[in-house]
């Protein structure tokens, strides 16, 4: 390990990149995207360096950077990465070059678009790395702005409606969370205000305070995840967002919610977490089944994928609030998995939209005959999303089921039916889009994927396969951090994590 402030660099690099893009003269707008991809690749390089240097088997924060900012309030620039945030940071850095490379369809205000994307990247990475609650909140809000513009300017027909809805939903959550942060910061420390996450871990909050703070933080995160019934902004935002926006939205932005729940709610408010475990499990299971059922009837393929996210994120939340090693670990892994598969699905939807300018499933049919490579990749990703063993979705999903079975057996069994529904909506969509005879004349002239498009998808496909076959490296890094969170909960409350081989009371 070196003393180089790698975490700050991860945040600053995209910002510098954005500034560099502003130097490109407007008449050379055609080089903007290639340059932006290159710049985001530098960030990816830094993230990979982080991944390599990261010491697995260590529970605490690594690469910590800490400087005081405003002493009287205990605000500081405090960054750190542990097993939970590591993979999400790498996922973010991984998806941005892909999303930018898939943006060559953007012709309007390209420079502003690329700037917004890079600022968004900086904001997201900042959220994952910040260990000071105010710094965290600044990034949390800062990231909203570019996302709002990406949907509102480069989106589809009803983009403004979607953007405003997105903004309002998240701003509502933010407002309440901001109140919670200020309250926690001024009252959580030992007499002195502090916003330092690590110091706040030792704060001795009353049960009631924990309960309210859990709600204040939780609402914001629940909207972001989204947990049922706070999900209705998501399909609108997805459908109207440009392809790259959807990829980032589904791939990374939604994870911020689940990440927040783990990082802040579980760690800072253990008692409330244990008390509210059944509530969140119920909402998670409703989300799993409800999202899947709504996905079945969607006639717009992008909306269908959006609702599948509601279902999949329900699994993540169930795993997190199972409060077991397996569940939490599966939940973190599943966040990464969902980012990859759903990101790929949105890329695929974007590719067909570019060709046909429609996303109505009924406008397709028999596409496999004209676009065999596209159909093959679509099916591959669909099966990954369904949770086929050998592909990434399976391991996370199965661990979540095992983990939730240990503490919440009935919910686990209900959630298992979500696996069937996932197969229903995806295979049914595949059947309607890709098989049978070609019925719509325009589809006869479709071209299969270009080599460039395949190259954009290839890294995701490789990771889907790798994590499906050999998830050990990922799990090894997640485990210690997850265990330390659960240990904290066990120490702070009378909750006892159920162990193997002891479950005796079944229906």
């Amino acid at each position: 390990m070196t003393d180089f402030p790698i975490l700050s660099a991860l945040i600053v690099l995209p910002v510098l990149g954005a500034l560099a893009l502003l130097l490109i003269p407007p008449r050379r707008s055609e080089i903007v995207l290639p340059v932006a991809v290159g710049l985001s690749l530098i960030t990816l390089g830094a993230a990979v360096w982080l991944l390599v240097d990261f010491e697995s088997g260590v529970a605490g924060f690594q690469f910590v950077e800490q400087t005081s900012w405003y002493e009287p309030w205990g605000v500081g620039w405090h960054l750190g990465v542990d097993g939970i945030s590591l993979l999400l940071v790498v996922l973010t850095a991984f998806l941005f070059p892909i999303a930018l490379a898939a943006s060559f369809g953007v012709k309007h205000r390209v420079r502003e678009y690329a700037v917004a994307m890079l600022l968004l990247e900086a904001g997201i990475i900042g959220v994952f790395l910040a260990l000071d609650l105010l710094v965290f909140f600044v990034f949390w809000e800062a990231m909203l702005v570019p996302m709002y513009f990406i949907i509102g300017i480069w989106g589809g027909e009803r983009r403004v409606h979607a953007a405003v809805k997105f903004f309002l939903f998240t701003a509502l959550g933010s407002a309440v969370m901001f109140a919670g942060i200020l309250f926690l910061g001024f009252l959580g420390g030992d007499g002195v205000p502090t916003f330092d996450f690590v110091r706040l871990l030792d704060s001795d909050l009353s049960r009631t305070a924990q309960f309210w703070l859990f709600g204040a933080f939780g609402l914001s995160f629940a909207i972001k995840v989204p947990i049922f019934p706070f999900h209705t902004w998501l399909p609108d935002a997805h459908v109207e967002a440009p392809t790259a926006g959807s990829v980032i939205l589904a791939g990374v932005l939604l994870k911020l919610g689940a990440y927040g729940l783990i990082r802040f709610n579980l760690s800072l408010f253990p008692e409330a977490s244990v008390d509210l475990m059944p509530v969140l499990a119920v909402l998670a299971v409703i989300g799993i089944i409800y999202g899947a059922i709504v996905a079945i009837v969607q006639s717009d393929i992008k909306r269908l994928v959006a609702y599948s996210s509601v279902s999949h994120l329900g699994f993540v939340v169930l795993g997190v609030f199972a409060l077991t090693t397996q569940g939490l670990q599966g939940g973190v892994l599943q966040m990464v998995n969902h980012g990859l598969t759903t990101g790929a699905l949105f890329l695929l939807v974007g590719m067909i939209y570019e060709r046909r300018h429609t996303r109505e499933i009924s406008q397709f049919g028999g596409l496999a005959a004209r676009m065999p490579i596209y159909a093959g990749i679509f099916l591959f990703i669909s099966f990954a999303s369904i949770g086929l063993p050998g592909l990434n979705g399976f391991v996370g999903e199965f661990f979540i089921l095992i983990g939730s079975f240990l503490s919440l057996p009935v919910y686990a069994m209900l959630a298992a039916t979500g696996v069937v529904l996932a197969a229903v909506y995806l295979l049914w969509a595949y059947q309607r889009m890709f098989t049978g005879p070609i019925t719509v004349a325009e589809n006869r002239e479709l071209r299969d994927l270009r080599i460039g498009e395949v190259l954009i998808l290839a890294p995701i496909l490789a990771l889907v396969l790798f994590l499906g076959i050999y998830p050990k490296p990922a799990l090894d890094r997640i485990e210690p951090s997850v265990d330390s969170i659960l240990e904290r909960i066990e120490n702070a409350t009378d909750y006892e994590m159920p162990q193997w081989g002891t479950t005796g009371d079944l229906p």
Partner: protein
Amino acid sequence: MVMLAAYSEGAAHLTDGGLLAQWAWLIPVVPLVLMFGIVFFGKRLPMKGWELAEAAMLFVAVYGVALLVMNASDGISYEGSVEIARIGSFTLEWGWVVDGLSIMMYAVVGVVGLAVFTYAKGYMKGDVRYTWFFAAFTMFAGAMLVLVSAPNLIQLVVGWELVGLASYLLIAHYWEDHANVVAGNKAFLVNKIADVGLFIGVIIIGVTVGSFRFSDILEAIADGDSALQQVAFWGGLALFIGAMGKSAQFPFHVWLPDAMAGPTPVSSLMHAATMVTAGVYLVGRMFPLFQTDGFAVDVKAIMMVVGALTLFLTGLIALVQDDIKKVLAYSTLSQLGYMVTAMGAGAYTAGLFHLFTHAFFKGLLFLCAGSVIHAVHSNNMSDMGGLRKAMPWTYRTFLIGSLALAGIFPLAGFWSKDEILASISYDSGHGGGTIATVVLGVAIAGAFITAFYMARAVYLTFFGEYKGHAHPHESPKVMTYPLIGLGVLSAVAGFANIPGIFTGFTQWLAARPQVMGDHHAESIDFVLAGIGLAVALLGIAAGTRLWKRDAATQQARDTFRIPVLYPVLANKYYLDDLYAKAVVDPIKGPIARFTNWTNTYVIDGVVNAFGAVSVFLSRIVYQGVDQRGIDLAFNAAASATGEAGDAVRYTTSGRIQQYAGGLFVGAVLLVVGFLIFT
């Protein structure tokens, strides 16, 4: 890092199998690796990838038979594994089991697979996706081998799901036709529903024991683990529900007849060696759970009833099918019913012995059917007739297969079916009670039906006059040789186990560290064997009486048209309609639409109303607040992204700033409230 562990404490005569067992991980790996070879290089090879597929099956067949021979002289029990992931105290392992049960399956998959793959070279000639077909087909076999070689429940689930995937791809092979894709989806989804049972069973048992390894679980059973005893019934039942899906037991059987949409070699392999045998195999692998007192013994009664229902009800449907593949499909269901019934009667050996013999004659019958279909370009027996002269080898082998299936002495089916009958009879006197006695009656009646519908199939296809319009001819050698090979095995496979005379198969299967605790008859039960044979002969006689006569039209020849019963059978007891109307349509239609409606109008409606109300309130409450400062901040943010901000601000008329400003001021007020009131 390879962890090797040999188990030989349970039975002193078991060996660890030496190098042959240590390298047995190649059995699933070689087909899977060659599958990728076919995908990436198949089209460039002289035989378009078939040679790699064939090589894979040849390897498995030779390896499997070598192990079988070695196991026959010295019982083998070996287990190896590699760690893939570790979560807490839970490890995920990839491994391979080499014991009596898995060796039998390796050999069956290999030998039947070799025959089917060879045959498929001729059958699939000129197919639009020839190379792709062999890739998927190799994966199908490879996935089954992953399942069979699994030393733990997780790997079994992996193989199980991959088998499901391969079957989906193969059934929907001709996806240009919607019906085939619907059949593929149906197979996948029905299996997936049953898989929920499997998942729950795996989790219940694994979590309770604290390990997913078969060896640990079976050891816990042998030790009388009390925690496991408490959940054993539910765990066992859930596992069995999973088994009912793959092994197509009533009422999950509906996917199997539709799966005939796939090319015939697929049907052949699916019905003989891979896929449908998986459920029976799982029950066999976990057998002590169902057989040991205090554990899931009660599940056996359910098994027996489910099996008996399946064998009887589906056998009857076979009587009214015109499509020759459907006749065979329903007969497979019926025979799977026999296997499950046997397992329910506590007859580990008899159930798996029937799986063994059935693999040969059912694989054979499907290949014969394919040969006929190839010749007449139709699946329907109403387009066939009189083919025995044009297709002598197909006819002879089909006859052998039919007689073996009907259970005629001394062909394979006779021995295995007799053993099942004897086991049920034994069970009726030893704990099975009245249920077993009734089931015995059903099983005997089933033997009559089996002989009856096979006689019908033989007469309608090969006797009388040709009804079709093509010019039937015998299939090429690449197709007839596999028929002959499987024909020989269908004739002799039954000799592997003759109670009291040669009990080789019993001993092969017993080569496991645990004791299976099933009953083995000391000698042939001549009365029961006589009854079984007589009933089968009666079925053939009745079939001959009804269908041998030549008649001008198929309609007149197929005189089995009893009112009420016929339409009920022809409509498959209306089960498909029931599922469609009572389950699938409501979910896809009203339920999903209603949920979607609630989503749009209730939940989102609340959101929109909330938005409207908050805007209203914020206007009233914060009118006095100077919003200029906040506006300024937002304008700054907007101008940072250039004119873009203006565009948006223009379209939203600045309302977003008002909302946001209001929200932030609200937040500050909330904090003040917090601070004052706590």
